[in-house]
């Protein structure tokens, strides 16, 4: 049953991704992108990596898609208009796909993945973040704090 689900979700994801690259209206492309992200998250769920799937939905739909939407709205006046045939998107997608495939096939260690004895739980990810990856985590935290303070400075009232 789960392999059938994988195939169905993969087809939907690919269709959404293709739509995101080829649709005429930018806003439709953004929404298709969101659908594609949900599809990838569903794949992660099927693989038992719930945390990654949830974070994917969280970050890419809650933040990135909304950010794209805001960017389109605030920068373009022709939001509703067609943008004409744009083959740059699909070309770029194929190029990235090719590069990734080449890189993955060239990597030796991917082929011999040891089967995991334990499922990747949220707890284990948390432990890994707090022990082996604590410095990267702190750096990201610092960056986010700086961004927050920057946002606060932006909204501060100017002294007259």
């Amino acid at each position: 049953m789960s392999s059938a689900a994988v195939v169905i979700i993969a087809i939907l994801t690919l269709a959404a991704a293709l739509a995101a690259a080829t649709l005429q209206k930018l806003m439709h492309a953004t929404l298709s992108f969101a659908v594609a992200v949900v599809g990838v998250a569903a794949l992660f769920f099927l693989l038992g990596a719930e945390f990654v799937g949830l974070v994917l939905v969280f970050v890419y739909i809650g933040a990135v898609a909304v950010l794209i939407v805001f960017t389109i709205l605030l920068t373009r006046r022709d939001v509703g208009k067609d943008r004409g045939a744009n083959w740059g998107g699909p070309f770029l997608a194929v190029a990235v796909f090719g590069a990734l495939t080449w890189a993955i096939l060239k990597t030796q260690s991917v082929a011999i993945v040891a089967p995991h004895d334990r499922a990747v739980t949220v707890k284990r990810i948390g432990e890994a973040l707090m022990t082996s990856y604590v410095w990267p985590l702190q750096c990201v935290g610092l960056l986010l704090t700086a961004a927050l303070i920057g946002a606060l400075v932006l909204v501060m009232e100017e002294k007259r």
Partner: protein
Amino acid sequence: MSKSVDQIFVSAKQWLLSQLTAAPSWVVQIASSLANIFALLAVFLTLFALMSVLERKILGRIQNRYGPNRVGPFGLLQPVADGIKMLIKEDIVPERADKIVHFLAPILIAAAAILALGVIPYGRNMTPFTIDGGILFFFAVGSTTELAIFMAGWGSNNKFSMLGAMRAIAQMISYELPLIITVLPVVMVVGSLTPDRIVAAQAGYTFGFVPRWFVFTPWGATAFILFFVSGLVESNRTPFDVPEGESEIVAGHMTEYSGFKYATFFMAEYIGMFAITGLAATLFLGGWHSPVSALEFIPSYVWFFAKLSALLFVYIWLRGTLPRTRVDQIMNFAWKFILPMSFTCVIAAAVWHYAGRGLRGWLWSLLVIAIVYNALSMLLDTQRKFAPRIYRFAE
């Protein structure tokens, strides 16, 4: 006896599934999920109907009038009449609207709201879907609401819809951050993202009578208030209903919706409210635990829904009492007060933990919160006398 009453719904489901012994395991799995979904929908759609009439009744009391009292006893059948009215209304789609996006928005927003209900423990052994990161699931699903509201606003091709959607997204993004950060102390103290574990951690009583709910710790009380306010903003309710401000922008992102699609938006708003108050009860008010040990014979789900109703009553009460805030006030409140306070909650919870989780920790965390609260009040200059506001327009 009380045990069997407590587990009556669980045993009912098990009996239903036991009819399927001959079926393969995946059929049983799907049937189990379907039973949960049906139960959830039945309970919460009934609650939605009840809430819509009770809200109007309570608002009526607050405003010294009767409220609906014509349909059925005490006007209790009003939601049925409303539902029929909404169903037979004409469904109008604007000529220049983006038909697909306009159609999908209410479906997506309702789906997101209903999905969020799935991870809340409604009683002992009564979590519809136990997910390892249940809390994370709740917020991940909740974050799709923003996109749905945006779809409604943009798809309608109407300036009021667009303005409403922009307002909604702006305030929802601003308050999503404190909403999640106020959950952090609870997750830290419990050490788990699973709602069941969080409820289990709040079992028992200190000194034999004070329940071990997180709301009775200084950091928990602060986080609860902040969570409640942020939840109020997330569900776009008064006093934070600028996205729908009727007197300014018609109905915000719902301007171009009529009939059943409008009803779907309405339903999604209420279900989102149930979800956020349910999570508040789970995180801070001990979930389905009873407040007094002598009353533990009352079934767990009764306690959960009692807490839910109490919180919903406060929502209605606030709606009847407070005027609408301005957009800039909402933003200032979020970034200058709520966000620093929610970070303080995280620190205060850590202090509480390292000072031994007893009375000493209680006092230390109270001190941390009091210091930051006072510092913030001084920094934000709340004692300032309000001069006439000068409006500076863009040249």
